[in-house]
């Protein structure tokens, strides 16, 4: 029994939720036609990335008409979308919203906000403060049990502790939306950033014997190109497909709980993980520091 997942590699229009929303609805409908149970969009897919002072202008509240419209489209198919989420106390988060059954099912607020090089996120966004795994309903198909998911937004992935926190709560699939720009074009190395993500996603999938779904955006913002390359890595660390080309596309992949089971029998890393040792050592280090 397989579960179909769709990767919506889009090129959002910067600061234009009105234009990006219908594009999301089209992609969700196309994913549903392709029998997908879940469609994953890139980071900040409803707004674009280099927003700067536009952040408050494009922010959505959890009960906004835009998110309600998207949620209403998510009855047969679930979706993970990216937006600026505003809270009652006027904080703005770089968020990934999991929509299912016509409502907001789970929210991840990006914890690690890159503020170096060409990135300036901490100037504009509040830091999220948790990594929570959740049961993803995935209505189509007949899985042996519900899938468990965990979201990591772009820079979150560059911190192995974040991935470990999620894995510890039981995760079958890491959902990893990103807005990763082109940097480094040296000969024989392909794109520097693409190379790093390839190594990282394969390693995490293999070490945590879980699927990893990486959806990066494409297009240009103020001269900066985003390289796409969206892909799925299986629990054995091998990609399920070639990385998507650098253009707007909807990719489909098939996931099986049975494959997870086989990988975890062959490679029982999760079973053998010594959380007690890790916790004790963390406590010791913390006390020593104090």
């Amino acid at each position, binding site marked *: 029994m397989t579960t179909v997942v769709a990767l919506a590699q889009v090129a959002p229009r910067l600061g234009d939720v009105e234009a990006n929303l219908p594009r999301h609805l089209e992609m969700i409908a196309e994913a549903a036609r392709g029998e997908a149970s879940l469609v994953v969009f890139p980071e900040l897919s409803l707004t674009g990335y280099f927003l700067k002072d536009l952040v408050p202008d494009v922010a959505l509240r959890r009960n906004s008409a835009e998110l309600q419209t998207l949620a209403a489209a998510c009855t047969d198919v679930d979706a993970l979308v990216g937006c600026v989420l505003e809270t009652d106390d006027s904080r703005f988060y770089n968020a990934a919203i999991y929509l299912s059954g016509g409502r907001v099912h789970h929210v991840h607020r990006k914890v690690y906000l890159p503020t170096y090089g060409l990135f300036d996120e901490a100037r504009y966004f509040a830091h999220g403060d948790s990594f929570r795994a959740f049961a993803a309903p995935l209505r189509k198909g007949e899985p042996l049990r519900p899938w468990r998911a965990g979201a990591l937004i772009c820079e979150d992935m560059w911190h192995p502790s974040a991935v470990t926190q999620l894995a510890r709560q039981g995760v079958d699939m890491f959902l990893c939306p990103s807005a990763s720009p082109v940097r480094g074009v040296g000969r024989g190395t*392909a794109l520097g950033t693409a190379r790093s993500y390839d190594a990282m996603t394969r390693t995490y999938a293999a070490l945590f014997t879980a699927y990893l779904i990486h959806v990066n955006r494409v297009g240009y913002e103020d001269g900066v190109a985003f390289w796409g390359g969206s892909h799925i890595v299986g629990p054995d660390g091998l990609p399920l497909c070639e990385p998507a080309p650098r253009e707007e596309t909807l990719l489909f992949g098939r996931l099986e709980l049975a494959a997870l089971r086989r990988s975890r029998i062959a490679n029982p890393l999760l079973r053998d993980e010594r959380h007690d040792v890790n916790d004790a050592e963390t406590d010791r280090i913390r006390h020593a520091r104090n």
Partner: protein
Amino acid sequence: MSTTPKPTAFDTLAIDTEVVTEILVGFLHDEVHKVGFDRVVLGLSGGVDSALTAALACRALGADHVIPVIMPYRTSSPRSEADARHVCEALGMTPTVSDISPQIDAYFAAHPDADRGRRGNKMARERMTILYDFSWSHRALVAGTSNKTELLLGYGTIHGDMVSALNPLGDLYKTQIFMLARALDLPVHIIDKPPSADLWEGQSDEAELGFGYAAVDNLLYHMVDERRTPEELAELGFNCEFIDEVCQKVRVSQYKRRPPLIAKLGVRTIDRDFRYPRDWGN
């Protein structure tokens, strides 16, 4: 003065020309169309930089959407115009020639003592105004041709050749421009001739700068991209005087790479705490 370090410029600065071409063609196509245009205009000097911008623009927009303007002065080398025409022919573009001699000579008739630096700057700015005039009349964006080496060294005229609406070459060192030009099959004699701003007869970039592009590109890469300290650069084999000279050129030309200073008074001052992406306007 030895300026040749152990790692060669060719090794250090090697680029994947296929990937770079794809990104720059996409850049021109996307950023031009995004703002409601479908054409670019550029000054074609007969040199490799403007030829490369033209070649990329032709791939992005089609040769009939690229407007090359050849703007000789009466002392410009005739070979420059011939080379510019050759580029047009090779790429299938139709050139426009606009001789800047009448207006330059009319202006300097009142300033006969002007030195050649002043005259050169004036010519660069005259060409800029022509390109922006064509931008208006042809509904075309001005495509820039300044490379990373000259932008970092400040080897260009502020509000002259350094001005454009969008510049596909600004993150490529001159050595990388040569690599890309070869990969795109630009005419060999245009790639191989000594680089020159051609503001006066016999002008040569490398003679004027006092060092070769291969050496300075190699140094700039390790200094700017890798952020190595002067001590680390010296350990790589770069001559200390050369390091100091290039550091100084980069530092003193910083003003050329920034918008004009605005005296801050309010709570949101443009580009300081009023920060929007340029794409906001589209």
